[in-house]
């Protein structure tokens, strides 16, 4: 029969029947169920296996603290491993499969580890598997890895979408239980802007699982009514199914909203949203989590938290067993017996470790005070329990309460340390939570519901008042006062039986004691040695229990034993949610140059450079290898004219009366006297004397300059200049703005470049060699009045110009230039040809300006001015930077012109062995020169400047290349620069 454990009542919608499968079996549940409640309704108790000993396990909790009921949900690329059944809202078609077993769930072959458990205690692996040495990677580790791990990742691309959002509020209230709702209501009534977030898909917290009456209504009804009231208020944002996972600096909280049901309908909608919530104040009302007691074989399916039994009974209308007993050390556990009776179920026994009189009458139940459970029987389901008084009781469900731990995690996210409260036998928040956070209700250790409601109400009101809102006039809701008494109880002496503390990771009392015995006495040492609290449940039910056991075993207080550090996330968070939409092509922004569309029309091959997509080369029909295209582009440029989009170079407009002085401070070479209408090459150093960037700066008018930087450093140079101005010389009259994206800029290079440009430059602008010589700069107009800037500068070594127009004209200008150049057989060239020509000319670029080379190393020592203070001057003079035997930049050419030369090769003496000691340098850039007909390279070699003519070897052991090269000048082509000036 379906759902044999289902009873009447509860907060489920019986009209909506949902089909789901567990390990292939088709089952039914209702809207409002969790996967766990539906499994229990169908009498599924064995739902998984533990991590290490593969022990049969059942559902223990009804919340996010669940250690056992973790499974794989969905299949294929949608499969989600390690998912807690206790917080997974049931939906139609849900597929759940148990994980971490070999063979069927009921006959896991790996359960052999349980019989070997005496060998596999805490830290056993540190003491063995060391012989023979090579066996670790080959044998032991693969075996361990295969048996470890829990669920399986699909290894396919996550097909879901995730999103990111930002919200701002006056007060964030975490947790929508009794105190959270009370706080939200009083704060909202005061007018403050409120966000109320709760991890459950149904707000109300424990009120939905208990039978308290509030303001004369059932607790769950009161919660529903309050939520309705809040949702009608404009200043309130309700976020259910939203788990706050971390408290960050300055009132910023991270929260994950689960929107799986929407995403299942429409894959474009996000499965989860990662919210960054900016708050002025936060009230933590996260409630408390019940803990277990460590007794012999306390991990069998059917042993549950007492509060979980009530949740299944009252909220989900499921009775988890037929013969239920209760084991407790506090008054709260008795509620389970009371609620069972109220639903008409007899309780087999109530066992209370305290030697006091029974807390209440439980008709028909055997009451055992001052008694402990010391052992249990039943491998795949609980059959009986054995008591310290010698009795054995047949029971199929044991509801255990070891007390409640306030959910104080967020109060410790900024390294707060909780303090011990003996009265409630729990750690409670200390007095220094993150700035702006206050705590109310059971999260604070206020265990009596009536008090928690008042506390929530008062906090909401007073925090709003502090923020300048008027105080709420409403009164807190009322409920009867029920006392909460507890006597701390941790491990029960259980003889040879193992008593579990951390269910998922299989850490037992013995493991903790062994760790102590072996000198691991700090709670952090115990955690690390035994893996306690490191499972997917983050030790929510285990940690305080373990601390209690340690404190007892070492004879110290709970406070001295202390907790481990609380860190985000409060519950595990999908990596996809943190990434949001930043994945695939959207991982980083993509920048396109003004000629991109035109280039794409020409079938250009693109390469990404500093987020830009630049044309790498332009293949023509019939060209099958990139070298064919690149060689052609170089030859054509050098023989006629070529055009290259150089928009990506950083462009900085600088104006003011003191620009010359400013440039003189930031450039290593003299810059004080650049005439109007001229461009000057500039080398910029870091303060430590290492080359930072190079480029040109043109003086367009007396007080107006325009600087170019390399593509890679466009942003960092601008930032540096702003630093130099704002922090070092704030009174210089200098105003800068980056105009990289405001101007499209093209290099027009080659002997016919002037002829080409003359066709588009407006007639009143004279760009003849006399009027506009090498290094000239000016503002002109083109194509009948379009404003442009023209610079006669050359990276290629040819007669060349760079022309810049406002970006909106960029695409047109490219087309105009190509059309005008047709008579010269103009070609576009890409970054490869650009690179070839710059290496032929021996210009240093990125691989040479690598942040490790000085001006001297680069052969530019002569440019350095000794007559001024500039960034990098003093530290550039340090002895090690001035040594003659530093790696200095030179050219290299293969002795045999047919030899291949590869960048990244290291340089060795002709007969030297390849060792670090013999290493003389490396080749930084290398190309085939179509003009010279062989490979050429530039690179760095010890004392290179004085070794020209010497032969060494360029050795690439990685790819197997070893060629003899001659050290030469890096200026391979037109070393006198005659072609530039014609």
């Amino acid at each position, binding site marked *: 029969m379906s759902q044999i454990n289902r009873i009447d009542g509860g907060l489920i919608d019986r009209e909506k029947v949902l089909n789901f499968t567990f390990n292939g079996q088709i089952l039914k549940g209702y809207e409002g169920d969790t996967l766990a409640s539906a499994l229990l309704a169908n009498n599924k108790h064995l739902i998984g296996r533990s991590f290490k000993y593969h022990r049969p396990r059942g559902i223990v909790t009804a919340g996010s603290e669940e250690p056992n009921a973790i499974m794989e949900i969905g299949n294929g690329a949608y499969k989600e491993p390690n998912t807690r059944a206790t917080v997974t809202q049931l939906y139609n078609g849900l597929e759940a499969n148990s994980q971490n077993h070999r063979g069927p769930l009921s006959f896991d072959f790996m359960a052999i580890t349980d019989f070997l458990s005496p060998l596999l205690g805490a830290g056993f692996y540190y003491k063995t598997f060391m012989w023979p040495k090579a066996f670790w990677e080959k044998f032991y580790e693969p075996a361990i890895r295969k048996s470890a791990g829990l669920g399986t990742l699909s290894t396919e691309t996550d097909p879901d979408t995730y999103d990111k959002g930002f919200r701002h509020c006056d007060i964030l209230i975490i947790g929508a239980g009794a105190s959270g709702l009370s706080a939200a209501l009083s704060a909202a009534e005061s007018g403050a802007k409120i966000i109320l977030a709760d991890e459950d898909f149904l707000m109300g917290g424990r009120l939905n699982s208990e039978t308290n009456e509030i303001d004369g209504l059932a607790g769950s009804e009161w919660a529903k009514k309050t939520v309705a009231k809040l949702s009608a208020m404009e200043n309130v944002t309700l976020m259910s199914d939203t788990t706050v996972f971390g408290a960050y600096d300055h009132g910023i909280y991270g929260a994950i909203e689960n929107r799986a049901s929407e995403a299942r309908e429409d894959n474009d909608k996000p499965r989860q949203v990662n919210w960054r919530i900016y708050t002025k104040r936060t009230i933590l009302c996260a409630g408390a989590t019940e803990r277990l007691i460590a007794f012999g074989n306390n991990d069998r399916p059917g042993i549950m938290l007492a509060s979980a039994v009530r949740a299944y009974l009252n909220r989900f209308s499921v009775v988890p067993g037929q013969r239920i007993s209760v084991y407790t050390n506090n008054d709260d556990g008795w509620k389970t017996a009371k609620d069972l009776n109220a639903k008409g179920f007899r309780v087999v026994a109530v066992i209370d470790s305290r030697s006091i009189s029974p807390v209440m009458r439980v008709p028909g139940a055997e009451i055992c005070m001052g008694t402990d459970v010391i052992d249990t029987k039943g491998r795949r389901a609980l059959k009986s329990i054995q008591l310290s008084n010698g009795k054995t009781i047949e029971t199929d469900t044991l509801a255990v309460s070891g007390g409640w731990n306030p959910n104080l995690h967020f109060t410790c996210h900024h390294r707060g340390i909780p303090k011990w409260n003996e009265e409630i036998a729990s750690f409670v928040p200390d007095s220094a939570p993150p700035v702006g956070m206050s705590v109310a209700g059971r999260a604070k250790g206020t265990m009596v519901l009536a008090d928690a409601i008042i506390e929530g109400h008062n906090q909401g009101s007073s925090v709003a008042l502090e923020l300048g809102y008027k105080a709420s006039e409403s009164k807190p809701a009322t409920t009867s006062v029920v006392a909460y008494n507890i006597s701390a109880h941790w491990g029960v002496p259980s003889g040879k039986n193992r008593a579990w503390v951390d269910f998922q990771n299989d850490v037992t009392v013995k493991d903790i004691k062994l760790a102590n015995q072996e000198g691991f006495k700090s709670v952090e040492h115990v955690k690390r040695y035994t893996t306690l609290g490191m499972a997917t449940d983050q030790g929510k039910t285990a940690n305080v229990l373990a601390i209690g056991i340690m404190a007892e075993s070492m004879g110290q207080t709970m406070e001295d034993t202390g907790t481990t550090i609380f860190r985000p996330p409060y519950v595990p968070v999908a990596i996809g949610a943190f990434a949001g939409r930043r994945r695939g092509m959207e991982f980083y922004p993509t920048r396109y140059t003004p000629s991109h569309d035109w280039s794409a029309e020409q079938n250009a091959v693109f390469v990404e450079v500093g987020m830009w997509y630049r044309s790498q080369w332009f293949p023509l029909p019939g060209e099958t290898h990139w070298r064919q295209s690149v060689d052609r582009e170089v030859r054509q440029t050098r023989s006629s004219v070529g055009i290259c989009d150089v928009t990506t170079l950083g462009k900085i407009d600088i104006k003011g009366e003191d620009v010359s002085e400013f440039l003189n401070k930031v450039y290593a070479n003299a810059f004080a006297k650049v005439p109007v209408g001229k461009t000057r090459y500039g080398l910029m150093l870091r*303060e430590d004397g290492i080359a930072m960037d190079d480029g040109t700066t043109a003086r367009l008018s007396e007080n107006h300059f325009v600087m170019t930087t390399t593509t890679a450093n466009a942003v960092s140079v601008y930032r540096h200049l702003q630093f130099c101005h704002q922090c*070092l010389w*704030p*009174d210089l009259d200098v105003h800068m703005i980056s105009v990289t994206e405001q101007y499209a800029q093209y290099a027009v290079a080659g002997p016919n470049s002037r002829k080409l440009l003359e066709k588009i430059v407006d007639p009143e602008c004279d760009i003849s060699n006399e009027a506009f010589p090498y290094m000239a700069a000016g503002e002109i107009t083109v194509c009948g009045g379009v404003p442009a800037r023209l610079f006669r500068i050359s990276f290629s070594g040819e007669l060349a110009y760079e022309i810049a127009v406002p970006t909106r004209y960029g695409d047109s200008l490219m087309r105009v230039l190509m059309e005008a150049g047709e008579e010269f057989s103009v070609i576009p060239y890409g970054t490869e040809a650009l690179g070839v020509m710059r290496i032929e000319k021996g210009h240093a670029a990125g691989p040479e300006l690598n942040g490790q080379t000085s001006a001297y190393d680069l052969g530019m020592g002569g440019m350095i001015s000794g007559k001024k203070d500039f960034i990098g001057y*003093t530290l550039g003079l340090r002895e090690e930077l001035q040594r003659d035997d530093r790696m200095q930049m030179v050219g290299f050419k293969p002795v045999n012109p047919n030899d291949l030369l590869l960048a990244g090769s290291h340089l060795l003496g002709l007969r030297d062995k390849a060792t670090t000691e013999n290493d003389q340098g490396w080749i930084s850039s290398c190309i085939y020169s179509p003009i010279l007909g062989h490979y050429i390279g530039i690179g760095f070699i010890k004392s290179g400047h004085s070794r020209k003519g010497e032969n060494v070897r360029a050795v690439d052991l990685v790819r197997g290349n070893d060629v003899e090269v001659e050290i030469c000048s890096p200026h391979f082509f037109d070393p006198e620069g005659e072609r530039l000036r014609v």
Partner: protein
Amino acid sequence: MIIDHPLLGPRDSEEFVYLGSTDLIDRPTNWESSAAAEDFHQYQYIRENIAGDIQELWYHEQGDQSWLVVTRNTLTHEISNVELAEDFSRAKGRGK
């Protein structure tokens, strides 16, 4: 973190680029002196690295390109003051 920009109000620190201690404002001016080598070495490389309140430089790169001086506690991350680096620098006697 949130930096309360003196001109633009509170902004997420994600909009900023961090440089380091405001000691970097105190660039020596004695480049011609024999003490310059050591002074520049101290300036560029040696840090107080205080556990507590420090004054540091943040650059509003995704904003108005201001350099800011932020007084922040390195133990708690609390920010107690934010001002424009330009003003801070002038107050320290820097000009041209």
